[in-house]
């Protein structure tokens, strides 16, 4: 029955091996068949497995593959689990991942190292699937580390560029900090539960740990540290905006389908632990709200189209954290899904623009592209409407509105969370419409030579855009809130889907009037609509006014443009001191004087001992025979006397 579950990660792994080892000899056509084909095959299997999971008892399929280490009670089985959470995730990862692979064929066609790119891309998908499917924390950790490695390889794909190499290193180091939290939390859980199986840990959490206790709080905070690393939240978000140094489809992959959603997956997966730690939950919600707001303000002042999108990802991830922090795990995952569609769409759309303009990323040098790039323009607009929460039609509206409502109405929510979220939503609408206006509308500021050659991208790129645009609309209909759906008899499919899956809050839900919900929805949506219109007019038509505003708010703009100087702050407060300590104390004193000296001395002793012994091996056979005889004498003497 379940024998083909293992195929899902196997296809990308195989694709990685074939393209990685033989890619040089295969030629671009073959590589382009294998790379996307592998993910496509795994998408097909994922759909089949997903359907099977829906029919399975308890909505869960587990496949035990083998035991990696089995020594008495110390068992490390390798097993995959598909349940409602991982089932949704594999669909997102392989579905969006497949479209990004297809898109990459067009985008990367002229690049050197084409096969290397596809090999890494497949490996990325493989590790992400491992992360999602693994039924134990150890296997999840393998995937967790693996996506970190692949992000390093792909962000640094243009490794001859210093900025790309630096960004790759930054992503890796920052992720390592988060990984540390993951490891410590995992070890603590193993000590307490004696197993790393996540289903078992969740099931036994209530009896093994005390509600609100220091231990469960510590474990969840450590997991949160891991999650902030992968999902780019304060304080570890700094790697994500730099990650756009990689090829644009890679940004789409990291920002939409993989990597950044891993942290949220971890929180959702361990929901039983998190609901037992109210302190951690409050921290999760606060970090989410703060990150959402903070990143949105930065996004308002950026000129690089990919940088705007990067900060918008950080901001949207903040929304998801906020949802998880108030206990609305299903809603957070809902936003993960809708975000996967529209963010992949936006990034791929920006890639299409960038390619058409010969790798120009500055929005000040764009404008008026809607005639040259019609498909790109209108799909990008759909994506923008989705992320801005344009009401009643687009995906982002439903998930974002549900998050805002939960942050207000949940027993662990708070009106302040709602307010921060609503303001952020307004800011989001503003900066996204600013980006659309600057890029596609208004008069053209493109270099005339470049503008001459600018033309719409090939079908391998536009077809994924169109499909993703469809997803950015339809994806939201799965989670229509009751208050809107009931009069029209539209069900909230997603809520029903996750019914009883996540741990529920131990506090009784507060009842709110339907009118409150409608009122709040009206306020946030109305404000966002105004912001959309305002930004569009300001940056599309009246750019001189925008420039004047910028001059009046020069100080603020400077602060936002430079991203609050957080990178500089980290550099001064953390990196420089560490570097200094490493160099003078750790390297020159501890390493050179102490460790090297010890190692060299021991090594020299061993080598001279070996040299002395080697002299006994002088090739003279009589001496060898004497050696045997001596040994024999000693053994016999020991045994007989």
């Amino acid at each position: 029955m379940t024998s083909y579950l293992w195929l899902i990660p196997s296809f990308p792994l195989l694709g990685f091996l074939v393209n990685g080892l033989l890619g040089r000899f295969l030629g671009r056509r073959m590589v382009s068949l294998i790379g996307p084909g592998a993910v496509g095959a795994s998408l097909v299997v994922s759909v089949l497995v997903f359907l099977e999971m829906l029919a399975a008892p308890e909505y869960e399929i587990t496949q035990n593959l083998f035991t990696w280490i089995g020594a008495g009670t110390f068992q490390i089985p390798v097993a995959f689990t598909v349940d409602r959470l991982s089932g949704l995730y594999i669909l997102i990862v392989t579905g969006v991942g497949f479209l990004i692979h297809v898109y990459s064929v067009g985008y990367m066609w002229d690049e050197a190292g084409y096969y290397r790119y596809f090999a890494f891309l497949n490996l990325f998908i493989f590790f992400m699937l491992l992360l999602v499917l693994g039924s134990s924390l150890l296997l999840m950790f393998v995937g967790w580390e693996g996506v970190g490695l692949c992000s390093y390889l792909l962000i640094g794909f243009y490794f001859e560029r210093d900025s790309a190499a630096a960004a790759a290193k930054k992503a890796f180091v920052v992720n390592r900090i988060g990984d540390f939290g993951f490891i410590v939390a995992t070890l603590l859980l193993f000590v307490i539960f004696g197993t790393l199986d996540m289903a078992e840990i969740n099931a036994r959490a209530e009896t093994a740990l005390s509600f609100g206790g220091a231990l469960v709080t510590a474990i969840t905070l450590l997991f949160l540290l891991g999650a902030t690393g992968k999902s780019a939240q304060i304080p570890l978000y700094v790697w994500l905006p730099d990650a756009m140094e990689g090829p644009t489809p890679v940004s789409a992959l990291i920002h939409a389908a993989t990597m950044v959603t891993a942290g949220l997956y971890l929180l959702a997966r361990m929901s039983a632990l998190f609901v037992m730690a109210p302190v951690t939950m409050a921290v999760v919600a606060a970090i989410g709200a703060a990150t959402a707001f903070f990143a949105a303000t930065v996004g308002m002042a950026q000129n690089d189209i990919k940088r705007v999108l990067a900060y918008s990802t950080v901001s949207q991830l903040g929304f998801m954290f906020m949802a998880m922090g108030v206990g609305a795990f299903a809603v957070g995952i809902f936003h993960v899904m809708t975000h996967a569609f529209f963010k992949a769409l936006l990034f791929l759309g920006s890639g299409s623009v960038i390619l058409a303009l010969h790798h120009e990323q500055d929005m000040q040098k764009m404008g008026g592209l809607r005639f040259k790039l019609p498909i790109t323009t209108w799909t990008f607009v759909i994506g923008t409407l989705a992320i801005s929460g344009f009401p009643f039609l687009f995906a982002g509206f439903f998930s974002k509105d549900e998050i805002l409502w939960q942050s207000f109405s949940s027993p662990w929510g708070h009106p302040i969370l709602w307010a921060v979220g609503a303001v952020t939503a307004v800011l989001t609408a503003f900066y996204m419409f600013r980006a659309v206006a600057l890029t596609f509308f208004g008069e053209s500021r493109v270099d005339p030579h470049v503008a001459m050659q600018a033309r719409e991208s090939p079908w391998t790129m536009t077809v994924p855009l169109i499909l993703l645009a469809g997803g950015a609309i339809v994806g939201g209909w799965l989670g229509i809130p009751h208050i809107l759906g009931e009069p029209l008899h539209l069900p909230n499919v997603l809520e029903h889907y996750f019914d009883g899956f996540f741990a529920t809050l131990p506090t009784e839900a507060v009842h709110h009037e339907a009118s409150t919900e409608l009122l709040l929805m009206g306020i946030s949506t109305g404000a966002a609509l105004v912001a959309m219109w305002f930004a569009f007019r300001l940056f599309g038509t009246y750019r001189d006014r925008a420039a004047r505003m910028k001059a009046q708010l020069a100080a603020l703009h400077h602060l936002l443009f430079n991203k609050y100087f957080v990178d500089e702050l980290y550099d001064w407060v953390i990196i420089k001191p560490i570097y200094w300590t490493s160099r003078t104390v750790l390297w020159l004193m501890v390493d050179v004087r102490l460790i090297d000296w010890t190692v060299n001395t021991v090594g020299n002793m061993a080598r001279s001992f070996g040299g002395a012994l080697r002299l006994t091996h002088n090739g003279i056979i009589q001496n060898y025979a004497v050696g045997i005889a001596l040994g024999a004498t000693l053994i016999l003497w020991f045994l007989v006397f």
Partner: protein
Amino acid sequence: MNFSLSATDFLTILPELILCGMGMVVLLFDLFGSGRNTANLAWLTLLSLLAAGYADITMMGQNLMGFSGTVTADDFSIAFELIFLSVTALTVLLSTRYVHERGMGYGEYYSLLLFATAGMMLMASSLDMLMIFIGLEILSLSSYILCGMLRRDARSNESALKYFLLGAFATGFLLYGMMLLYGATGTIRLREIAEALRHEEVFVNPIAWMGMGMILVGFGFKIALVPFHMWTPDVYEGAPTTVTAFLSSGPKAASFAALIRILVEGLSPMQEQWSQVLWVLAVITMTLGNVVALQQDNIKRMLAYSSIAHAGYILVAVVVGGAEGLGAVVFYALAYTFMNTGAFGVLILTADRGRERLTFEDFRGFGFVSPALGVAMFIFMLSLAGIPLTGGFAGKFQIFKSAIDQGYIWLTVIGMLNSVVSIYYYLRIVVVMYMQPAGDDSLQEPPRASIPLYTAIALAAAGVIYLGIFPSGWIGISLQSVSLLTAGG
């Protein structure tokens, strides 16, 4: 005496019979065959190995006994026989071009390999000291000749002569030990010896103890335990590289199989004493092997010392004993087969331009000269050093895990320290391959492709990785194979 023979008797030694028969067919084929087509001989040899392997697999779990209980085909012998067959099969794949280009008498080479394999199988499946001895001699005589197959090379001749002289010396010890044991117990059958030793008056007889000591010396020589190891580097270096690959994996495993049979089935009443002796031998073997390997510049000699060190690790598992310990021996023997033969395979491929004796210097920048072989060598070195996700790690893990479970803390500590030392010289190859530029005198061109050679290396690498990632399958077979041995004792 009743000499009636049944079909079961012959079925028990069917794999051995196949190999001996096919060994003769190979000789005849070479004599009367059309031209001197070495490829056909190699295929014929592989075919016979496959046939023997098939026979082994079908007999699994049946625990046949034959020839009035002198030979058996229990799971222990079958597990080891499969290891021997893998060694020989890999060696044949590695040999095709090497043998052809150096004009090493074709038919003789392959048939000697088959005879040697039959000898090893007999060693693993005998329950009788005399049969073990016969098996050992079939193996040894074939090995002596194989070492000297490069007739015009003085080093090869030296290798064969040294091996033969010292081998004869050690055989003397072994045979004398068996005789003394027979004198003390009145039987050559292992299980009857154990029976006899349970009587107080036999147990205290110093003749029995001398017999055991001499048997340990004899096997110590074959396994190359310190201080009976000194022939190893000279013989391994001088012998044709394909033969070295064979000698360092196959006969060692066979000697371990026979040693375990004698110690566990025959001399179990003396376990306390023999495990003390082996404890000391394991420690000095591991330590000396690793420390001297540090000093080597010639890679073939380095691998020779490393094989001494690995025999030391396996001996730790023999000392520990029990299902876990002996199971670890079986597991490690296969893992070592893959990583060791694979490493030699890379050496054989790179040595094909007449550079027989390669040093570390020659491998500078090799990872870029020949990426595929570089990666393969990298895998084998990681496995030999015992890094996780390789068969070498899974094997060491089981050895040291069983040692800790049985309370051999110090032995484990010494073994682990040795393992750390060994990382230095294994990774030294990796360092020169990837971190040093190719020089004028290092290997400049990738070796000429050869499908059988690449197949052997790929199979070995796949084996190493398979045992590292999916160890449970072979662990299960290993534990199953020793269950009869440990249950009786």
